[in-house]
């Protein structure tokens, strides 16, 4: 969601991996050893490596060709893991009503989860719509501070709730909020615990990082099935999957906050005789508060992005409305349920972000509207509104709804009809789709699959070594080899070709838009709600228009990926460019550089760390949509993951899911230059 934050198994500093694009602070100022040109730094080692590579290739390529011949990954070298997985699947079904592991532990978890969510939902329902409305608005206002920014955030909350009600989605919204409250609480607690462990011990940190990466890159579709088998359909499985996906940002940012604590402060508290626990409580945790709040913000966003997937196993709420609209091919209805999801995200994002901004700012005490009395006022307002329910009823008044389904559907038909073909000169989306498939996707896929398997491995190793160290090359090669061992070689190359194409398009458009945004502040203000919507609108909502425009084709999958990944790239690029040292710009201007020269020679090179982060986020986010792309014709690995879930074949889905994680690892290693370690 808001820049689904992370890198597949990256070895970069957590700072980079975790920064939210909305509030990106581009790291790596140290890299900007100004003055010296980057090219000089880069050129020589690369040239040297190229020479070595050429020599190696001259020996290895003919040798491998003789030994292994050509063709895809040999079947003899692969292992089928689906058998044992399917056995595990069966064991769970046979034992879950009787085995002590279930009776004394897992069933408790699932019953507690169900009770917690229905408890929150019943409480919200009992408050009546006026009570919930007032609580949302007043607490947003109080949390964001009482000045102008507070009023703005409160107004956002007001608008969000009003639209949810007007669209006729009040009840579904409440159910989704109930699930979110429980999921975010669990994810935040889990995240803080992991974060504490990793923040206090380097070894735990090293051990946990790949785990956190996998938690986010492994498609939820792949592990939804085992969760359903163990915890049951409905709330429990949905809740636990959401927690897994949403906990990592909290964990990473907590770790980051703890590690970033000013050593002088810690030193001081030690010298005052504080023990480890006191030091943690009085110094380290308070200092990490800001990062932890950002973590919470990201956790909320990630949790919301799971709403529709949760509906696939019967969690209900807004996700179910979106999902069921798909079966009647009703874009309008899907949109009516998708908009509230976006609005909840915006409401929570602005509230937590505003609360975060206030941390550390000295708050003026006293006055009726400050401190405790401010909270009391908000609480009193809510209580009064709850009482109103006896007058206004508990559920949103039926008359106050507005059906947007029909007009939206008409608009969608008109737009797709007029854009898909018959535009003079440009042709239309259908023609583009066909040309892109024939001239870009097909050659790329055919080229990749035509390469002998050992050549792909050598290529990956060479590329990874060029940008990194021999360790990078080793990891990337092993990940690629793992794909072969899993027996999904050809499909993975098909997926890889789509991912690469999507990545190139995303980066091209994203960097271009980012540059424009950085140069024209007004444009960015206009774009912000659009970018928000692109990131938080469930992809299921725009699947039908995408198919109507581009057909059942891999291009549709790529379009879906670009829509989802673009905002993060735009934001990170714009932020990076804007943070370029003004002195450097000033200097170049005084030397008579033109605007274009400034951009190409000064801004872009100096914003390199930000651009690298943009590439990294592009990789992660494009991979996150591979599964969704399969729903519109992407095929390959994504299709296997969906098939595994819908046909109950755990082995198939897990294998494809793991292959996606491996692809992420390969792409991460060959796109992220090695970072100097301090």
């Amino acid at each position, binding site marked *: 969601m808001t820049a689904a934050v992370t890198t597949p198994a990256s070895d970069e500093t957590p700072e980079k991996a975790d920064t939210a694009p909305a509030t990106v602070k581009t790291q790596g100022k140290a890299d900007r050893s100004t003055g010296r040109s980057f090219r000089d730094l880069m050129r020589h080692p690369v040239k040297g490596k190229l020479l070595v590579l050429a020599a190696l290739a001259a020996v290895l390529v003919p040798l491998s060709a003789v030994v292994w011949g050509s063709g895809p990954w040999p079947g003899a070298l692969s292992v089928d893991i689906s058998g044992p997985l399917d056995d595990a699947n069966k064991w769970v*079904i046979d034992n879950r009503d009787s085995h002590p592991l279930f*009776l004394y532990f897992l069933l408790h978890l699932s019953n507690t989860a169900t009770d917690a969510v229905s408890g929150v939902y019943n409480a919200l329902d009992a408050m009546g719509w006026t009570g919930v409305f007032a609580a949302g608005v007043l607490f947003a206002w109080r949390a964001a501070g009482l000045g102008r920014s507070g009023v703005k955030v409160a107004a956002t909350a007001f608008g969000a709730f009003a639209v949810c009600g007007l669209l006729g989605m009040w009840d579904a919204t409440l159910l989704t909020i109930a699930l979110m409250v429980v999921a975010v609480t669990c994810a935040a607690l889990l995240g803080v*615990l992991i974060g504490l462990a990793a923040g206090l011990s380097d070894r735990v940190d090293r051990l946990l990082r790949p785990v956190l990466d996998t938690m986010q890159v492994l498609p939820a579709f792949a592990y939804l099935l085992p969760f359903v088998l163990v915890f049951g*359909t409905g709330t429990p499985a949905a809740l636990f999957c959401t927690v897994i996906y949403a906990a990592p940002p909290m964990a990473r940012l907590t770790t980051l906050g703890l590690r970033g604590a000013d050593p002088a402060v810690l030193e001081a508290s030690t010298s005052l005789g504080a023990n480890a626990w006191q030091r943690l409580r009085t110094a380290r945790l308070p200092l990490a508060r800001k990062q932890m709040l950002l973590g919470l913000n990201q956790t909320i966003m990630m949790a919301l992005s799971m709403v529709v997937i949760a509906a696939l*196993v019967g969690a209900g709420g807004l996700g179910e409305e979106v999902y069921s609209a798909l079966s009647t091919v009703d874009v309008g209805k899907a949109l009516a349920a998708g908009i509230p999801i976006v609005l909840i995200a915006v409401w929570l994002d602005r509230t937590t972000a505003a609360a975060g901004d206030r941390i550390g700012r000295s708050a003026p005490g006293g006055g009726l509207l400050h401190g405790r009395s401010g909270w009391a006022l908000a609480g009193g307002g809510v209580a009064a509104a709850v009482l109103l329910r006896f007058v206004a009823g508990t559920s949103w008044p039926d008359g106050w709804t507005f059906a947007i389904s029909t007009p939206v559907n008409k608009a969608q038909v008109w737009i797709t009809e007029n854009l898909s073909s018959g535009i003079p000169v440009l042709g239309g989306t259908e023609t583009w789709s066909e040309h892109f498939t024939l001239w870009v996707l*097909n050659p790329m896929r055919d080229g990749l699959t035509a390469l002998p398997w050992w050549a792909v491995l050598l290529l990956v190793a060479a590329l990874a070594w060029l940008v990194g160290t021999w360790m990078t090359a080793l990891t990337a090669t092993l990940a690629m080899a793992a794909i072969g061992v899993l027996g999904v070689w050809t499909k993975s190359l098909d997926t890889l070709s789509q991912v690469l194409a999507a990545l190139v398009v995303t980066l091209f458009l994203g960097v271009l838009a980012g540059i424009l945004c950085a140069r024209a502040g007004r444009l960015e203000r206009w774009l912000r709600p659009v970018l928000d919507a692109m990131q938080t609108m469930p992809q299921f909502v725009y699947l*039908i228009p995408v198919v109507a425009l581009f*057909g059942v*084709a891999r291009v549709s999958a790529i379009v879906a990926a670009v829509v989802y990944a673009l905002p993060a790239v735009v934001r990170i690029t714009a932020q990076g460019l804007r943070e370029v040292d003004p002195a450097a710009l000033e200097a170049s201007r005084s030397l008579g550089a033109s605007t274009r020269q400034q951009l190409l020679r000064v801004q872009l090179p100096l914003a390199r760390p930000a651009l690298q982060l943009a590439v990294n986020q592009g990789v992660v986010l494009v991979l996150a949509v591979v599964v969704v792309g399969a729903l519109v014709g992407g095929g390959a690995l994504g299709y296997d993951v969906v098939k595994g879930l819908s046909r*109950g074949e755990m082995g198939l889905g897990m294998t494809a899911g793991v292959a996606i994680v491996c692809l992420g690892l390969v792409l991460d290693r060959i796109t992220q230059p090695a970072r100097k370690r301090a």
Partner: protein
Amino acid sequence: MNRTRTLRTTAVAAALGVLSLSACSAAETGKSQDAAGGEKTVKLTVPSWVGAQANTAVASYILEEELGYKVKTQQMGEVLAWDALSKGDIDAIMEDWGHPKEEKQYVEDRKTVVKGGDLGVEGHIGWFVPKYFADKHPDVTDWKNLDKYAKELATAESGGKGELLEGSPDYVTNDDAIIKNLGLNLKTNYAGSEAAQITAIQKYVKAKKPFLTYWWTPQWLNAQVDLVEVKLPEYKEGCDADPKKIACAYPNTPLQKFLNADFAKNGGEAAEFLKNFKWTTEQQNEVAQMIAGEKMSPEAAAEKWVKANEATWKQWLPKK
């Protein structure tokens, strides 16, 4: 360093303590909230396709309005629904297109699910072309002539071969094997979801383009789009026994209902009503068309149908 370690140990101990507290008694396997308030509740699954939504909507409407039950519906995938049925998280599946693996596991081995009888609707899967295409080339409706039209059916995705449009991974398909074993110059293209497949078909029809698709009846879209089935080699008992060697058409499937075993025994009037529920393909399509074609809510469509067809559903009610 030492202190940090103490801290870590304490944290681990605390976590273990909480765990052991929660684990001191066995959990209930059934769901406790069923009994709340003495209200009679029936839980049904809502499958993702509209025909099945129509069944569920009509059954829910009659259960609530005529028999005084409260119906909870839950949307989920087919295989997940079987699992939930076995656990008692849902009480009945109203339309099943055949899941031999699950039937063996839950009905025969574990006996947690029982058959609920025929739905009365017969499902059929096959290959279809649009009527305007078949009218122009009548011989396209025989598989032997499909290769002649491969060029017209080709798309950018099918690499020079004719495209056979496939649907959601949920659905049973033998098409890759059929194409291979009949030696056809066709290639499957998996849409990945029913919504994408329907959108693609609607798009082709609007442009009057030829296409070939995996399709089935009953389906609400058949009321809007005229499709003609392509004859495949005739289905004979057992010709689909080996998935790799299939070279014949799909069988006709009498759609089935399945009930949770406990519910079937103790479900009273509701269980009896669901066992009696049986209607025709046309009746189901009528409701499905209201939902999908006219975009009515399932509840409204069910209400309209129930009001107009009292004679039919009165027979489903349990005999007093």
